[in-house]
């Protein structure tokens, strides 16, 4: 993680939310990764991912790159030599993977030409829907300013007797979104729905909503949802609402989140664990401990069983708003409920204890967690080292640093600065230099960042000495 968190606080929240998505596979083991290999994993609970439609030929993506140059005549030559030398059956799969491989490096027109060439030289090959989807995906991924080449690919598909279906829509939307062409994606979805009745399914729809949330204003998202509802009768589902709530929570707009909860209830949905977790996360990010507890109680009232993420979020939020005692209480409750506290749980609690200046308590917690077979991660160590330095327990800190160094744990920026500052104040300059060396060596920080901290620390130390304030 190293680079992302500017402060220790955000570091803790980072692991917390990372953990949320890492929990997903446990809850829905039937999930299969989608056919877009580079798609970023969804931040939210896994229902957004897909289980269907695996017929898309991008499964061939792992085959070695056959075409070295985007030149069309080279590609044709290569294809001919394949025809001449390959003994195995030349089926659709073979042609598709060749086309796929060429599409990865060429432009749409050349790919279409190659396809024509393939059909001409090898008449028994009849392209199917997936063949045209390759061209479609390629045209959508290109950084074009219009949808012209996409229309070209679609028309080719139509003239060969394949009507766009929801798979077509899905491929187009995902390709366009991955290329950052959100407005085009919206345009194309509406066009495909209108002209070809290829209405997006909930997965495609939610994918587009998520991308809209990320890159466009909330009003744009609402407009899109309204339009899809009124024109094509595509309605938002619970996952859509979860995406929206998560998005407004991340923008710290809790009022909007509460309104969305009302709307989803009006639409006949019952909030599930993911919705509650998302709202709770929103409260925690703005350090509203009481509201987080209120969400927890509401969950219980409505018969939704809190899961590990719920407890982790709650403990994180309470620790953050300096209510460690209550956080500890919930740690015990979660144990009673049969959840096993993990690294995130303990790290959040340690963070809370350190905030209260009880670094020794945090250290004791480290022992407890290790005794329970839960291994600390880099965030845990950084939290602890930071806390120990702040509580003026430098010797313990140096001991912990030794452990970190042994295990090759990276130092985070805030932790590094605090540690170096504390060492210098105690007159242990040589050790501060050693920490500087380790930070650079382990690539925790850039040399420039590490040096700037060291330099400014020493500078202010000198000033303090001149004023007779330090050793």
């Amino acid at each position, binding site marked *: 993680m190293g680079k992302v968190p500017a402060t220790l606080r955000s570091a803790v929240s980072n692991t917390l939310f990372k953990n949320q998505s890492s929990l997903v596979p446990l809850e829905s083991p039937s999930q299969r990764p989608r056919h877009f290999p580079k798609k970023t994993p969804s931040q939210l609970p896994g229902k957004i991912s897909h289980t269907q439609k695996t017929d898309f030929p991008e499964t061939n993506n792992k085959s070695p790159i056959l075409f070295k140059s985007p030149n069309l005549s080279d590609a044709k030559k290569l294809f001919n030599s394949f025809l001449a030398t390959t003994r195995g059956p030349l089926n659709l799969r073979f042609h598709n993977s060749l086309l796929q491989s060429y599409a990865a490096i060429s432009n749409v027109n050349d790919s279409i030409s190659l396809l024509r060439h393939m059909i001409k030289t090898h008449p028994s090959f009849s392209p199917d829907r997936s063949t045209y989807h390759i061209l479609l995906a390629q045209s959508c991924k290109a950084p074009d300013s219009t949808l012209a080449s996409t229309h070209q690919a679609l028309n080719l598909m139509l003239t060969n007797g394949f009507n766009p279906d929801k798979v077509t829509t899905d491929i187009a939307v995902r390709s366009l979104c991955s290329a950052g062409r959100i407005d085009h994606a919206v345009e194309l979805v509406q066009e495909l729905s209108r002209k070809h009745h290829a209405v997006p399914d909930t997965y495609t729809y939610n994918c587009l909503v998520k991308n809209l949330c990320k890159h466009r204003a909330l009003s744009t998202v609402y407009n899109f949802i309204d339009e899809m509802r009124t024109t094509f009768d595509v309605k938002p589902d619970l996952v859509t609402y979860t995406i929206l709530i998560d998005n407004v929570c991340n923008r710290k707009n809790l009022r909007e989140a509460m309104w969305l909860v009302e709307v989803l209830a009006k639409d006949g949905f019952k909030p599930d664990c993911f919705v509650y977790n998302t709202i709770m996360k929103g409260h925690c990010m703005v350090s509203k401990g009481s509201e987080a507890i209120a969400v927890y109680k509401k969950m219980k009232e409505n018969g939704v069983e809190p899961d590990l993420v719920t407890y982790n979020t709650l403990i994180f939020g309470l620790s953050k708003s300096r209510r460690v005692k209550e956080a500890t209480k919930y740690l015990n409750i979660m144990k009673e409920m049969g959840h096993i506290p993990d690294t995130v749980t303990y790290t959040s609690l340690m963070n809370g204890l350190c905030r209260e200046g009880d670094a020794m308590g945090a250290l004791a917690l480290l022992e407890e967690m290790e005794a329970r077979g839960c291994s600390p991660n880099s965030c845990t160590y950084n939290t602890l080292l930071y806390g120990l330095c702040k509580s003026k327990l430098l010797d313990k800190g140096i001991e912990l640093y030794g452990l970190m160094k042994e295990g090759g744990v990276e130092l985070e920026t805030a932790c590094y600065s605090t540690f170096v500052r504390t060492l210098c104040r105690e007159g242990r300059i040589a050790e501060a230099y050693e920490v500087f060396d380790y930070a650079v060596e382990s690539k925790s920080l850039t*040399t*420039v960042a590490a040096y700037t901290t060291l330099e400014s620390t020493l500078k202010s130390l000198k000033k303090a000495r001149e004023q007779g304030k330090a050793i």
Partner: protein
Amino acid sequence: MLPQRMKKSITDNPKLANLIDLVNLSSPLREFVGQSRISHIGCFMRVWSYIKDNNLQDPTDKNLVNCDEKLRSILLGKPQVELAELPALVKLHFPRNQSNCAVPIMVLFFS
């Protein structure tokens, strides 16, 4: 040395850019580092690793450095320096741009 993106964010900040810009060196420093141009931070790293490689830290007090002849030539001829003042001493070889003095002159002019 650095990833491109990071390098950009550093060069955008003039204060940090001073650290990584290559500078033409004075002759004692040129002799010490063995090249005619080096960055501020590169020079610091070179001096610090020279101290470590030659065990120049005082055995009784690690915070002190006993300079050998070579080191003395670039650290104001001091026989012993504190580790704490090392960055400041290295910095002397990398003066800020002359633009610093522009403001006081203007002030003098108008007052």
